[in-house]
């Protein structure tokens, strides 16, 4: 957990938490952070953004009660620049090899599954992933990922709407 920005006021409950994975130092791995910077001013007031680098169980345990979750990450297993949105449990057992780029010690489904077990309830929400081409050291996005940033930002905003937990 490196930083958090809350758009909601102290008295307003958090509707959706956006957990942003990746590293600005590693090429296309920085696309999620750049995308959230581009949409930050357009975010609804009840959205809290947290930069988490690599998704950890505690990041999900820290989600406010009743809030939906949007996880934004770079991915491998899909074409560079391709943007996908899927349910938060949608990575488990995929035959196409799609998986988040930034998950290391524990696989993404394990992180989500363990968090759900600790919470005692499902993690409701969506994952927005963008296929990356290069993850080596360096800040620049690859051409195809840079070209896909408008689609990524639009998908993030849509996913936030679709992740709200009905009251």
């Amino acid at each position, binding site marked *: *957990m490196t930083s958090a920005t809350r758009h909601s006021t102290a008295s307003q409950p958090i509707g959706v938490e956006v957990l942003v994975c990746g590293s600005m130092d590693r090429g296309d791995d920085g696309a999620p952070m750049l995308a959230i910077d581009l949409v930050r001013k357009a975010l609804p007031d009840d959205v809290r953004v947290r930069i988490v680098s690599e998704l950890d169980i505690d990041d999900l345990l820290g989600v406010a009660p009743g809030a939906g979750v949007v996880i934004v990450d770079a991915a491998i297993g899909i074409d560079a620049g391709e943007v996908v949105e899927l349910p938060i449990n949608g990575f488990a057992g995929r035959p196409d090899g799609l998986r988040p780029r930034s998950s290391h010690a524990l696989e993404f489904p394990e992180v989500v599954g363990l968090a759900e077990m600790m919470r005692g309830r499902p993690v409701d929400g969506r994952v927005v992933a963008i296929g990356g081409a290069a993850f080596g050291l360096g800040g620049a996005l690859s051409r195809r990922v840079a070209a896909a940033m408008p689609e990524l930002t639009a998908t993030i905003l849509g996913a936030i709407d679709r992740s709200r937990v009905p009251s």
Partner: protein
Amino acid sequence: MHDTNVLTGPPGHLEVDIAGLTRVEGEGSLRLQVRNGAVEKAHLEIFEAPRYFERLVVGRTPDEVIDIVARICGICPVAYQMTAVHAFEHGLGIEVDPAVRALRRLLYCGEWIESHALHVYLLHLPDFLGYASALEMAHDHQAAVESGLTLKRAGNKIVELIGGRAIHPVSVRLGGFSRSFRRTEIRALRGVVVEAVELALATVDLVAGLDTPTFERDGRLVAMRHPREYPMNEGRIVSNDGLDIATTDWRSEFSEQQVAWSNALQSRGRDGRAYLLGPMARITLAGESLHPVAAAALARTGLAAEIAINPYRSIVARAIELVDATAEALDIIDAYEPADVAATPWRPAAASAAWATEAPRGLIFHAYELDERGLVTHAQIVPPTSQNQAAIEADLAAFAPRVLELSHSQATLRIEQLIRSYDPCISCATHFLDLSMEEVP
């Protein structure tokens, strides 16, 4: 998520090809070939993109370097910071306040607690209890997983407070820290650390009783040793065959080499011998300086001798070090008195700087050359996993014939379990590589 092929032919033949090692840090694979009972190939292949940090820090100031190297790894950034800052301070002759020394040790304790708790409970324990993943294990052992997460959280809190944030800390500065810490701030950690000591002791009881494969390695162990404290930031580099050199002199005994099958450089002794670092080596070579609480826990297990030779017992060594790090953290918190100044002033100068510290996975070495403006002109960063890689491969070669009689799945499990015993951090190991590498046909 990995593809594993175990192909067996006639008796005495085994091919294991694990394309994506799981529950290790980073991305790597194993290729193992045994023919007529003899190991023909045992290659730990590390294929994360090479990281050019050694080039990146050239032209930077020491304080910039301290922040940059922390980004090499999300699991052990403190190890990189501590090694760099001690190298620069030694090279430039900077003396730090005793309170700074204590806080840096507390910061390192936090990282050890985070790293060891993650590895013991979520990466390694599933192997011993017969589960394919931490998630599967959690269905039957939720309390164990919760203990691991609570311990890890205690380490996170220490690193977050002293380092300024939980991942890639930013507060370490040449001569001290970017700010002073009040006694009340440090004392606020006490509650979680007291709980962590108890959980760490329970961890030792849990892992000491695990059914463990028998494997005796007869290799070289290398670690730091300090006369008054368990080695972290200071000491001398020693081995189980009589080596005893200053932390600045790593290059007099060891060197890095390139191998065709891996993006990571491998380190060996200048005589070509592989060597093993990490908790096994530290307990064996510096166990007499464990915190008394940890020393008593080790004695209760009766496993000190086996830890020295059986890598599968490294889970016990990590648990003992969890006790050591939590107990020492508590001592530092209780004794803390703020320094008069946050950081000792210093002047840029030309210098040669080198130092080693003990990362959770083992000894890490840095060397830098500074010009008269105090800017880095050359850097060498040697992480633990690239030093352990040759020993891991040698151990795999020695162990593989023992699994020939097992089923495919059992053989694979035993081999993966052995690799995880070394807690390789592949993200760290790929620190730099000359790209003119030869392709293996």
